[in-house]
């Protein structure tokens, strides 16, 4: 027995509301991030990830209040990403109660931000998120700006470079699978995870519990992230963990 594989529910937040959770059964206010965070905590989530997908600058500040509220009630690690562009942004999120800050587009446009934030606050709190799309057999490319912009960067090489720049973890999303419920891109996940010394969080495509288990057993992921299967009440985090345990994967129950 030793380290458990982690299950991380992801909450996409815009203008103070969770957007993927509108059909969540049994919650009084389905889209309230603090309430959803508490529910996942009670179910045994190992961490929570918040992605601020607010497009306009108007609603941006709301994420700080959400994180402050969650951090005073939920005592598990919280990762926050979306729109992080400077060391000051990282500092502000950490001060609000985030334990880790995730960077995606800004890491590509300014890789120094990763090393600077990592040396300032420690690599344990710097997560680099990578959106990757398959472009040829065993070849995946990094996209930014929410998947709209092709960068020409190879996903595996980029992940290794981010590790060297001081990332503490990589959050890898398959754009081909995201939202499809067809399961992780296991070849992508395994290729990136095996190339890294730091932990890999797999994301994109989870539609059932076997997909989560496969992410670990076949994708070699250290943690698995999912949104819709939890938000829509199809499965609880506890059910996911019991399933993984039955598959001989070590989990925290």
């Amino acid at each position, binding site marked *: 027995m030793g380290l458990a594989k982690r299950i991380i529910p992801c909450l996409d937040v815009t203008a103070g509301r969770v957007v993927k959770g509108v059909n969540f059964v049994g919650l009084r206010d389905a889209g309230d991030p603090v309430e959803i965070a508490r529910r996942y905590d009670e179910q045994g989530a190992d961490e929570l990830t918040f992605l601020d997908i607010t497009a306009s600058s108007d609603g941006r500040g709301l994420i700080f209040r959400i994180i402050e509220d969650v951090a005073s009630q939920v005592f598990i690690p919280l990762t926050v990403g979306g729109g992080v562009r400077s060391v000051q942004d990282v500092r502000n999120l950490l001060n609000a109660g985030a334990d880790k800050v995730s960077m995606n587009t800004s890491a590509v446009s300014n890789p120094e931000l990763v090393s600077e934030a990592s040396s300032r606050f420690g690599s344990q709190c710097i997560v680099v998120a990578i959106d990757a799309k398959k472009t040829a057999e065993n070849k995946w490319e990094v996209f930014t700006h929410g998947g709209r912009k092709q960068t020409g960067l190879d996903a595996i090489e980029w992940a290794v470079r981010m590790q060297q720049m001081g990332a503490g973890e990589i959050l890898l999303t398959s754009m081909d699978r995201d939202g499809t419920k067809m399961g992780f891109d296991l070849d992508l996940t395994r290729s990136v995870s*095996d190339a890294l*010394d730091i932990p*890999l969080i797999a994301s994109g495509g989870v539609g059932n519990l076997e997909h989560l288990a496969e992410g670990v057993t076949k994708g070699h992921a250290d943690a698995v992230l999912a949104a819709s299967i939890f938000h829509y009440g199809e499965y609880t985090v506890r059910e996911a963990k019991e399933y993984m345990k039955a598959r001989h994967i070590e989990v925290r129950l």
Partner: protein
Amino acid sequence: MIAVVDYGMGNLRSVAKAIEHVCPDSTVLITSDSKEILSASHVVFPGQGAMPDCMRELDSRGLRDAVLQAAKEKPFLGICIGLQMLFEFSEEGNVAGLGVLKGKVKRFPSERMTNEAGEKLKVPHIGWNEVEQTVSHPVWNGIEQGSRFYFVHSYYVEPGEQGIIAACSRYPFRFVSAVAKDNIFAVQFHPEKSQHAGLSLLRNFSEWDGGF
């Protein structure tokens, strides 16, 4: 009053919030003032980032003496780098620590990071691991043997005295995840991020008189 020592490294809010949550009647003060540290009933010594930076920042704020004094006489809780800094020496940047406890801080060696199934283990060691309590101690009160706590670290302590070991964990080999000596209790994991077990530990610490 419970003082959380602030020497400019890392996020102290979460530690303070977790203690406030379990001790609503206590005053929790995040402070970089020696006088406040020395007037506290309990002192929490956290730490994040790299140990050389932590040592430098502690000294640049003139807090070394207050921390050494508190570690001698008050219920004192070291967390993560706050545990590591109590030792004599760290491989991380080859820096001297405070030397309150004998022993050194070592990196998880890449050549040993393979588990029984032959799988590569990642460093940093991030996530929930089992903590095997090796002594009975007031700070462990009511916490089930083998409870999982949240870890984030690449270095671990190797105490010079076996007698101070209070818990061990495995990754993939057995390493020391908590120590206890007199009024000092120090942990490698993050109780403030370890849900029920972590909150129990913080509550126990806040009620501890420093005896053991």
